[in-house]
């Protein structure tokens, strides 16, 4: 491996990197792809470069740009170095002790005055396994209610899959694609979003797996697929239901699997009854012979796998689409076999039980949905907020979220960067980066991999694991429940959770690529779920229909939450955010390299729509939805359909981009079945913006 230089950022006068013969191994903790990394450090223990780990059997040395960019931001001007307190609108340096004391005092005060429900956490970036466990223990001791990554990423996927199979996790490893005959990729641009692991899909293609991509955009993934099916936005459910109907009617499904292992087949057949090929073709814009061919392909090519993406999960009618496709996989018998199953980045290995005695568990006195959180904050019901994430950018109606946070009494942000949300905080605490924390990382291959701390801890940064233990101490809580190191945390978790009992740190260290879970005490690991044919639902079978006996309820995208009642004359187009390879969540925006790759956010527009609006490439366009408007530069491309706009969700005002977050345009609307916020397919209008900036 050669030495790594980035000349455009380093310039001619920069010194070459000092050779580091002792590269440290780590695991990328960004997209749950779980790519192995090699990290080169300078003499102070700071990261100087990040490479792919050639010895990792899953990524085989491939990675995407994101971990490299992230490593670059670690020592940049936006990184928080020490705890700070806001005094008269300005941040002032304080010590950790002062900060913890103040937070503890406020915390106890609000619990007494307004109840445990007056304190919530938005904790999508809480840290690695050590921090997560400490956070769980802390929440149990204090009754803190948390909103994690779920509502903004995978709540619907998780909930619907849990209803069907009894477990929201992915059921087959991505590495199984080489053994499958067909891979159905729906609303997922994994060539960009799981770039480090995409070589598996191409390898499968070389070995004869048919790769079918269903998407609204002609994505990079679609470009290398065997078959691309372009579908109208938000109509995936109808396509899935038509496939189900065709397969059921023509007896193309796996009859023995259906009779032995499923419930609700009749209800399913009834629910899809009206979705003839013609009707589906009308709704989706996919010709009926294409749907028919796909159905036949799915039936004849066994085993098959499914890989869904945010394109059908983060939408306002996600419940129906996810259920349709996963029910489809079930009736085809693509469950619990080699080369069959559902691939996902959701890796839920269950939670540790009985970590603290019942007497010390505090239940929150109020529970709210993610949707109701906004109002509760605005009406003063919530007093204190703990942020480990960036809700002012990545939660919908971001402007409303920012205002709501501003109105709270006391806000704490535990963060890497002084981002949009941290700017609203009263106390900002420096967090460690995942390269600075040991822990366990899951991957899209259903394995758990251990990583040691690679880089030296930066300045005064502390991990969530340390933070919560110390905060508990200041609050006068029992601290003996908290582990004091990542190793001890895993030991504690492992011994309290049957599904990972056999996965010791030692074993993970020794096994290249990590250990599959569940893994019982005797060390037997399960590469894929449900091979025994037993499902963790109450009936022990796959539940093809919902508890209310209706299998799937298709809702049209224009009648879905967020679009319901909105005038189609006034807002004739649809707007989505979609991801690119150089950015992740809101953190890569602080990297110069990411900015070099993605100079500015843009909106993709079909040439005909551009002509309607009278804009040419590069001109400014004002997009408007019911929640507000935003100016972006136009990129005219045939990869999006007519009447559809696509932009990127990453950017914030307090970053080098200085950009109003695209999520400001999305109303607070959730999928009624699964509970995911929608950040796609929201009705909008657009016009050319001439001669004015934002």
């Amino acid at each position: 491996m050669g030495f790594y230089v980035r000349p455009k950022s380093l310039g001619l006068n920069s010194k070459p990197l000092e050779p580091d013969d002792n590269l440290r191994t780590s695991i990328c903790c960004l997209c749950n792809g779980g790519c192995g990394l090699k990290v080169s450090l300078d003499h102070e223990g700071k990261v100087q470069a990040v490479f792919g780990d050639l010895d990792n059997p899953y990524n085989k040395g491939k990675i995407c740009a994101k971990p490299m960019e992230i490593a670059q931001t670690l020592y940049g001007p936006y990184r928080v170095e020490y705890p700070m307190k806001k005094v008269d609108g300005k941040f002032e340096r304080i010590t950790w002790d002062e900060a913890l004391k103040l937070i503890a005092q406020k915390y106890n005060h609000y619990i007494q005055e307004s109840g445990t429900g007056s304190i919530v956490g938005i904790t999508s970036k809480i840290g690695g396994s050590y921090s997560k466990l400490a956070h769980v223990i802390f929440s149990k001791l204090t009754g803190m209610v948390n909103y994690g990554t779920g509502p903004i990423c995978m709540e619907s996927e998780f909930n619907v899959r849990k209803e069907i199979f009894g477990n929201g996790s992915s059921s087959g490893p991505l590495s199984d694609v080489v053994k499958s005959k067909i891979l159905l990729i729906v609303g997922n641009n994994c060539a960009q979003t799981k770039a480090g692991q995409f070589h598996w899909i191409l390898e499968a293609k070389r070995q004869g797996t048919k790769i079918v991509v269903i998407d609204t955009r002609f994505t990079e993934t679609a470009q290398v697929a065997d078959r691309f099916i372009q579908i109208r936005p938000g109509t995936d459910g109808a396509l899935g239901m038509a496939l189900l109907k065709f397969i059921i009617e023509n007896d193309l499904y796996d009859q023995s699997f259906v009779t032995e292992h499923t419930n609700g087949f009749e209800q399913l057949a009834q629910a899809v009854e009206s979705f003839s090929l013609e009707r589906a073709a009308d709704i989706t814009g996919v010709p009926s012979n294409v749907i028919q061919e796909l159905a036949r392909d799915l039936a004849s090519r066994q085993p098959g796998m499914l890989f869904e993406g945010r394109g059908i999960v983060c939408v306002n009618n996600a419940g129906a689409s996810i259920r349709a496709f996963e029910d489809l996989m079930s009736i085809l018998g693509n469950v619990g076999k080699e080369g069959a199953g559902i691939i996902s980045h959701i890796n839920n290995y269950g939670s540790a039980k009985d970590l603290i005695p019942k007497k010390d568990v505090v239940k929150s006195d109020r529970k709210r949905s993610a949707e109701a959180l906004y109002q509760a904050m605005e009406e003063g019901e919530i007093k204190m907020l703990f942020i480990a994430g960036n809700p002012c950018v990545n939660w919908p109606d971001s402007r409303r979220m920012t205002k709501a946070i501003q109105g709270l009494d006391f806000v704490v942000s535990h963060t890497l960067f002084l981002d949009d949300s941290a700017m609203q905080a009263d106390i900002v605490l420096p967090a460690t980066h995942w390269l600075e924390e040991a822990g366990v990382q899951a991957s899209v291959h259903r394995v758990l991999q251990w990583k040691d701390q690679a880089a030296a801890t930066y300045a005064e940064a502390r991990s969530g694991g340390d933070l919560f233990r110390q905060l508990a101490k200041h609050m006068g809580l029992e601290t003996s429940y908290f582990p004091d190191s990542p190793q001890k945390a895993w030991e504690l978790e492992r011994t309290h959770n049957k599904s990972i009992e056999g996965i010791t740190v030692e074993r993970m260290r020794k096994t290249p690529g990590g250990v599959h879970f569940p893994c019982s005490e005797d060390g037997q690991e399960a590469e894929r779920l449900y091979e025994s044919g037993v499902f963790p639902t109450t009936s022990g079978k796959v539940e093809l229909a919902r508890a209310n006996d209706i299998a799937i309820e298709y809702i049209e995208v224009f009648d879905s939450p967020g679009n319901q009642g909105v005038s189609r004359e006034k807002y004739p187009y649809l707007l989505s955010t979609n991801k690119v390879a150089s950015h992740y969540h809101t953190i890569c925006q602080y990297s110069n390299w990411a900015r070099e790759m993605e100079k500015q956010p843009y909106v993709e527009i079909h040439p005909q729509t551009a002509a309607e609006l009278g804009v040419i490439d590069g001109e400014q366009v004002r997009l408007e939805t019911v929640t507000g408007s935003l100016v972006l530069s136009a990129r005219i491309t045939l990869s999006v359909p007519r009447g559809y706009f696509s932009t990127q969700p990453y950017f914030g005002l307090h970053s080098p981009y200085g950009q109003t977050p695209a999520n400001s345009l999305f109303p607070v609307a959730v999928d009624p079945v699964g509970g995911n916020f929608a950040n796609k397919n929201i009705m909008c209008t657009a016009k050319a913006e001439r001669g004015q900036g934002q």
Partner: protein
Amino acid sequence: MQKIYYQAKHCDGCLACEVACIEKKSLTKSLFMAKMEQPVPKARISFEKFGNHYWASICQNCVEAMCVGACMTGAMQYSETGEVVHNLEQCVGCWMCVMVCPFGAVVPLEDAKKVSKCDLCKDEKTPPCVVACTRKALCYCTPEDYENEG
């Protein structure tokens, strides 16, 4: 194998090579029309100025190329004769090659969301950029010739 070599000491930053490259990479093969093409064609050679000096970024066809190692689709490959070649059809625009190239020589094509790089214009006897370089800052020769002539 012949490569394009750059000698900074002869370069006065006239950018004639860049212009020649744009012309060659345009659909219309005309510099005048190239400006009006959508997307505007991009040169596979680029310059940066440091004080009075110029530095060119152009593919060096490395023997152990970082871009080939980083490419997850196999779009970046070695040809039979040892050049690094890029297959646009296999490219999915993850831009890892852009990230890792130590010469900054891989050019992202934003509109197509792919990349491209110098392909040595094998259809020509001498690459147009080299022809355009009147000061002989660019030369197209084998490594041995380059070593010998300096």
